[in-house]
């Protein structure tokens, strides 16, 4: 069953000097439910932009993005927010934890806008990522690897159908990166969430059976000889 279906997607970027560049020109892209896929691409190939479009944070100029039953490109902003809150988990390279919140509160915020706070489930997720003893710690009090694990737990908090991970191991050392990657994959499997992971790290990419190269898929990408 297809979870994500993208057709004829075009996303432009307006530079400060007023000129417009096409960042993303993607004829087709799909992801099945519970599928785990790695997406590679050189810098500037539009990886983050694609994830933002899928999450409904950015609106494409053209094309269709269907997530589950919902046509994201036809939905209002409020509907996209609702959809993101309910069905999408997001893991960032820079973690983007809320600094004033404890680990538990960070995870609770991951569910707050969707199905609502469930402290038990939040605590069990933190337990699962090995931070059961650190519920009341704040991000600053944790190591970088631990912070990313909080972010992973938060991304799963709303029981998403799709987890988007943007260079999730980019800020971690090799050992932590391996651990984090394994954890993300396991926890997505356990929670029956599909995973779309963006990376340019060959080691990370090698771990995935499903791999796509955005330099090849994106007609606007540098490797494709497009505008950029």
């Amino acid at each position: 069953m297809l979870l994500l279906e993208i057709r004829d997607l075009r996303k432009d970027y307006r530079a400060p000097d007023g000129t417009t560049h096409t960042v993303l020109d993607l004829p087709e892209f799909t992801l099945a439910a519970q599928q785990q896929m790695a997406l590679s691409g050189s810098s500037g190939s539009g990886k983050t932009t694609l994830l933002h479009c899928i999450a409904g944070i950015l609106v494409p100029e053209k094309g269709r993005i269907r997530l589950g039953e919902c046509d994201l490109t036809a939905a209002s902003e409020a509907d996209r927010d609702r959809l993101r809150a309910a069905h999408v988990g997001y893991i960032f390279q820079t973690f983007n934890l809320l600094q004033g919140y404890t680990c538990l509160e960070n995870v609770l915020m991951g569910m707050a806008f969707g199905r609502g706070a469930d402290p038990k489930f939040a605590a069990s997720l933190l337990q699962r990522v090995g931070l059961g003893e650190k519920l009341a710690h704040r991000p600053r009090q944790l190591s970088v690897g631990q912070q990313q694990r909080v972010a992973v737990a938060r991304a799963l908090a709303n029981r998403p159908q799709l987890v988007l991970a943007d260079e999730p191991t980019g800020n971690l050392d090799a050992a932590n990166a391996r651990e984090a990657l394994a954890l993300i994959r396991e926890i997505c499997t356990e929670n029956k969430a599909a995973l779309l992971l963006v990376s340019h790290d060959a080691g990370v990419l090698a771990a995935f059976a499903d791999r796509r190269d955005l330099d090849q898929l994106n007609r606007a990408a540098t490797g494709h000889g497009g505008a950029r």
Partner: protein
Amino acid sequence: MLAHIVTKSLRQHALSTLITAGSIALATGLLMAVWAVKDQSMRAFTNVTGGFDAVFGPRGSELNLVLFSVFHMDKAPGTLPWADYEALRKDRRNIKTAVPIVVGDNFKNFRIVGTTTNYFGVEYQRGRRLALQSGGREFAEGAQEAVLGSFVASRLGLRVGDVFQPYHGLEYDPSQKHEADYLVVGILKASNTPADHVIWIPVLGAQNMPGHRAEAATDISAVLLQFNSAAQGPMFADQVNKGTRDKTVAMIAPTVTRFFQRFEWLRVVLGAMAALVALVGAGGILASLYNTLNERRRELAILRALGARRTTVFGAMVLEAATISVLGVLGGFAVYAVCVGAAAHFVRQHTGVVIDPWEASAVFIVAPVGIVIAGAAAGVLPAIKAYQTDVAENLVPHS
């Protein structure tokens, strides 16, 4: 949810929250104090007329007459012959009660006022008369005896049976001692009126005090009056004030009211100042939210990425501003309590008049509500900025 986000944010910016709320507290306290104090002190002062309607005295300022005879402040403008008192006493058609007052002596800065025992019989407030503490009695006419106001007795540590010697003049001067012994025969129960601050002696005793001029021995300072009916007062006052050249009748309550109304301009000025401070407080909210907006953008973007709507972050910002104002307003009540409490204490110490800082007043509702609305409104501009925060741009850290 909103409340949670707001609480977190307020805590994260605790210092600026505290400073902003503090300035709003000052503004609120000041605003309420400025508006409430005049009304409340006016009410308190018009309420302690001793039960009298008017003062009859020598020609002079009405305010001066009222101040010295009712509040025991200020000097007596001159004297009246005893015959004036007799005439008033016999004017049964207009006057219900006439009580003579003689001032001019003190004991350690507390005024000694000569009067008749009729003074104690007047209801100073509805259903209340000056009463003696147990073990005391009223002074005997013509005797060298004194009844002390409760504040005087407790301040000077005098008790029934003690003897003191008066000093000439209204201010204490150790060289002005009268060689006359006065026996304390009674102490009044506290009445929360100026009577608590006075040493009462018989009017004849005051007149005959050794050292007073013999030719003035029958003179009095003023006569306190109660009229038979409220309507007679102004008419009688008019008659005296227009019909004679050397006498004045001052209606007590209207004189006090006029006195306080003189300060209306001061209230307007102070009120405007307080309103400005409130405006500065609201501006402080705007500035503190706006200044922290840059560091907040990332957080707002994260919240948006987690599914928060634009309206949610907008609401959080306005609610934060409103919450700071509410904290400020609560602090404002504390500021008010301290300021007005201190003022009330001061007034009571010096006049015996009790001001109730918490007597109901519209300002206690209008000022807080107005300030919270102004504060919340100050949050609107930062909230619009928060509303416009670009999620994709702010999810990555800016160097």
